[in-house]
């Protein structure tokens, strides 16, 4: 190669050489796929759900049976065979699982986070953290089976009137499942609290208990709240455990009445699975109701994720 060639070779612009262009476009398409996924989810849920409602079905050119959007959002009876689609019956059971699992997971998760961040030795952390990860790694259908076969009979000893399918056992396993999520996000927030604050507390004569509860937890509050919301959003979207353990009969129950946790009901996700395992026809009303429930579920979880993101950004204590 002569020097002239070398010079042109070294100074040529490679930014848009074919190879660079090809690889850059490939990587860009990969990243854009996530946007396409979101758009498809939103588009699909909205178009299919609007075929379900009387109000919007004509716009989609759908004739045939439809359901009233008001009845859907305010009705409390879910009976596919008698064409009653009151989503509140499903939402109330989902709410029960959420409340029940929150009662278990939120205090235990925060306590775990405090222990891991403030008290545990490095060695204990290196054992406890993977052990907690296992809790989140067990398939949810397995948790459902545990609730049905082992936890419900154990609860029967305490509450003889408990049903084979009940919200209590489902709430317990969902609660156990989301403990690691609360714990790991809260612990990240607590570890991010600067050591100077702790040292200042000790310098004032505070005990470790005072420092943990009076300094570290308040300083990490935004992270703890955001972990709560994310974990609850996970509990709402949880499918297989509640499908197996919570029951198959849709019922409107009062989530604030403890006695109703002994009964079985049908949360939103379980209703979706039930719709598909039952014999529904391709384009029928029941099939389209699937997407209406899906839309409700998607909106609830999306709003919760956005709130969690906002809380952790907006109220983060900057150090």
């Amino acid at each position: 190669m002569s020097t002239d060639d070398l010079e042109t070779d070294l100074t040529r612009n490679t930014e848009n050489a074919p190879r660079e262009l090809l690889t850059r476009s490939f990587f860009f398409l990969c990243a854009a796929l996530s946007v396409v996924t979101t758009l498809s989810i939103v588009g699909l849920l909205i178009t299919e759900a609007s075929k379900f409602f009387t109000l919007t079905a004509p716009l989609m050119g759908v004739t045939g049976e439809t359901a009233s959007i008001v009845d859907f959002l305010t009705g409390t009876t879910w009976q596919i065979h008698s064409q009653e689609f009151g989503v509140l019956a499903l939402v109330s059971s989902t709410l029960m699982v959420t409340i029940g699992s929150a009662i278990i997971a939120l205090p235990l998760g925060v306590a775990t986070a405090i222990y891991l961040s403030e008290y545990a030795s490095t060695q204990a952390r290196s054992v406890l953290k993977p052990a907690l990860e296992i809790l989140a790694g067990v398939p949810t259908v397995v948790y459902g089976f545990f609730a049905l076969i082992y936890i419900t009979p154990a609860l029967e000893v305490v509450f003889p009137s408990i049903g084979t399918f009940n919200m209590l056992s489902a709430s317990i396993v969902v609660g156990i499942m989301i403990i690691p999520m609360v714990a790991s996000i809260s612990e990240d927030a607590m570890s991010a609290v600067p050591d100077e604050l702790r040292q200042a507390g000790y310098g004032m004569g505070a005990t470790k208990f005072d420092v943990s509860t009076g300094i570290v937890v308040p300083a990490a509050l935004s992270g703890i709240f955001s972990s709560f919301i994310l974990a609850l959003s996970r509990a709402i979207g949880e499918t297989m455990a509640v499908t197996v353990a919570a029951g198959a009969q849709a019922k409107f129950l009062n989530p604030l009445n403890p006695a109703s946790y002994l009964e079985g009901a049908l949360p939103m996700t379980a209703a979706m699975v039930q719709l598909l395992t039952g014999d529904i026809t391709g384009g029928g009303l029941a099939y389209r109701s699937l997407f209406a429930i899906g839309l409700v579920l998607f909106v609830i979880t999306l709003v919760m994720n956005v709130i969690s993101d906002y809380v952790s950004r907006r109220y983060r204590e900057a150090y």
Partner: protein
Amino acid sequence: MATDTDSGYIDSFGQVSRTTGTVFRYLLLAATMFGIVTLAVLLVYVANDAIRPLTADLGWHLTFFLTLVVPTTVVGGYLARRNVPALKLGGMVVGMLAVFLMFSGGVAIVFVDIIPPLTGLSYVVGLLVPAALVVVLTKYEQQIPFTLRVAATGAAFILSLVGVPGYFHSIPEIVRQLPVVPADWMILTLVLGGVAAVVVGQYVARIRENTTAGLAAGASALLLTGLAAVVGPTLGVDANAAAVVTSVAFVPTLAYAGGAAVTREQERIGLLLAAAVVVGSLVGAFAVDALGFAGPQSWVDWQFLTSAHSGTAENAGLYPAIGGSILLMATVAALSFPLGVGAAVYLEEYAPDNAFSRFIDVNISNLAGVPSVVYGLLGLGVFVTYLGQPTGTVLIGGATLALLILPIVIISSREAIRAVPGDMRQASYGMGATRWQTVKNVVLPEAFPGILTGTILALGRAIGETAPLIMIGAPNVLFNLPTELTSKVSAMPLQVYAWSSLFASEDFYTKAVPAGVVVLLAVLLAMNSIAIVLRNKFESEN
């Protein structure tokens, strides 16, 4: 963080009650242990229901206690006190053997039952021919323009694998029509043993820094596989199975153990632990056979692993579901790995700091929070309703699960790529490398272990998912192994769900379901332990 405040010597500051602090501390510990202990108890229950250790003769327990438990405990206890790294090495070898044995079962399902060996061989040949062309083209990289090389490579692969209908047969077709074809076990020995030989050879050449040693190790790996396939039938083991298990499980474990014995003098005593476990199990097995002690009447047995669903719990098996899970995992990995890593590379290395990049960023974290059942709806709506695919196939099941874990793969790959020091990139640019060359030669090799760990963990999530598969219409009961991308698929968690809800009866609850749960958890444990070993290795190297 862990500041010691128990300075009880200074009494003059007055009394501070330590009761609250102590109570609080133990409450926290109890809270931490609650979930872990609950799950552990549940796991003991399900393992007891599935394996039923109490149904075995007392003599059986006693024999294995003497041959396996006692020697292992003695060796392990000695090593734990004297030489912990050696104990780790021994544990590693034992774990490797267990995980690889399980893995070889999966390989046997894929390369013997799903893909007939001859078909497999034909595609291997069909891929080797264009691959050779690529190697040649890379050699003359400077002389041939890039576009021409890409075009030639693409054309070679298409011509070789698809051929030109009517004019020119594809290479796999030609291979399949050869008048004389080798027996199945020869093909398996050649292909799987060949792969094992290459891997083992490179490993030995690297640790011994000696090419001849590597060649010798590779040749002996191939020989060992062939020997197992020849000797196997005389001992009552199927030749195909012998070839697969030897090449996938025994050869790599032997190579690792042998390599450690030669290069790590301080720790090689740990191999005694592995020897105690292996010899103890074999001696125990022979002894109970000779003495006529009956083992536990476990529901997880050979019949359960190799037969299909049945109306009675005793005869029900998991085989089509295991095969389905393997095929789904392969599809999910093939789709989500390149797409996820590609997106991560774009976001970390290419993306300009503008609104669109930030939007993608927020979007991915929101996608990670979308419930899995909604992804199932996406698969149902887009692939089945709009694209007109048949319901419940391997392809759309894999595609749906791939979309589900894509955000997780992207997030963990981004973390791995971000951990690559900026200095290394700057050095590469300083040498005149382009962006792609930097990504290919510096960033990806450096981030690869982290990316791999994240991907395996995400695959572990996908293998346990049931809801998306139900939504796309995967059948609850499948009697045949899926053999193509367009055949109906079942999966292990789906089968467990079907047994525990659709065939709900006391019989299934106490027999088939616990057995299915134990198999599913064992596979998950194997996958997660691979990921954790990789992560630890990666962290200790940095």
